């Protein structure tokens, strides 16, 4: 039953994204940036997805350290991996937008740099997990590292407020304006990306549980 719900949610997310691409293509050009501006309809939703995943990972890691329940560890690794994929999509779409609008693929601007550092930190989290074999030690070290990595998330989010950056100011919370019609499409994409993120995290969580089952079966096989 749970599996069916996940598949339906995933299919609905993909249907919304496909329908929305069609609708976004029909929207008029932005005055200054032209058609390239429409990358925002994917760039922002994947960023929101990545930040949400980082928050879930932070809470799950704290949950593991408090309760020592491995379900929290599974949730932390699942959301971190999905968040990493979303952040990669965010960095790449941003870079493509920058090439067209700024004329450069990359600049060591506060927002871009902190986002790259964030990606590297979470990639380091996954590598750290690979390096430690003992499950309790792996989960504890990973949880501490995840909490440390999360410190970068507010820096990424507020970097455009705290420093003068080349990155554009946010459209919604910096007094910017966005036509209501465009907002609707952006919101649909955000909802779809979040749904996709939930499905991916749930599938990855189940895989982590399966990995734990494999570990216990191995221990049983060794004991016999």
């Amino acid at each position, binding site marked *: 039953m749970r599996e069916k719900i996940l598949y339906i949610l995933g299919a609905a997310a993909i249907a919304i994204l496909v329908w929305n*691409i069609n609708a976004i293509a029909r929207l008029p050009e932005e005055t200054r940036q*032209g*058609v*390239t501006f*429409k*990358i925002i309809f*994917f*760039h922002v939703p*994947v960023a929101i997805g990545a930040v949400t995943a980082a928050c879930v990972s932070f809470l799950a890691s704290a949950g593991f350290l408090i309760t020592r329940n491995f379900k929290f560890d599974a949730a932390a690794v699942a959301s971190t*991996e*999905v968040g990493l*994929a*979303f952040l*990669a*999509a965010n960095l*790449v*779409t941003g870079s*493509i*937008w920058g*090439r*067209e609008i700024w004329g450069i693929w990359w600049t060591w601007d506060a927002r871009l740099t902190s986002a790259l550092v964030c990606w590297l930190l979470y990639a380091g989290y996954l590598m750290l997990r690979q390096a430690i074999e003992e499950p309790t030690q792996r989960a504890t070290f990973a949880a501490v590292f995840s909490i440390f990595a999360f410190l970068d998330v507010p820096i990424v989010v507020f970097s455009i407020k705290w420093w003068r950056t080349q990155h554009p100011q946010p459209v919604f919370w910096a007094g910017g304006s966005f036509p209501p019609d465009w907002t609707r499409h952006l919101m649909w994409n955000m909802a779809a990306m979040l749904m*996709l993120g939930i499905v*991916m995290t749930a*599938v*990855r969580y189940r*895989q982590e549980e*399966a*990995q734990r*089952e*494999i570990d216990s*079966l*191995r221990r*049983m*096989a060794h004991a*016999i």
Partner: protein
Amino acid sequence: MHLLAQVPFLAQLATEEARLQHQYEFLSYGLTAAWVILAVYVQMMIRRERKLKREIASLRAMLEEKHGE
């Protein structure tokens, strides 16, 4: 005279078309990149799922065999 006046307009139209084409090219790169990254990740998850299922099945079979002995 009328035809000649149209030439600059046509040139402008061609420039505009080239600009739009260039921008659509970058837009398609952006969208393709986002989709490809997510699709590659989903593919990795599907592979991992298969591998885990195979491992669980083989370990269970091995344990049953050991119990039988």
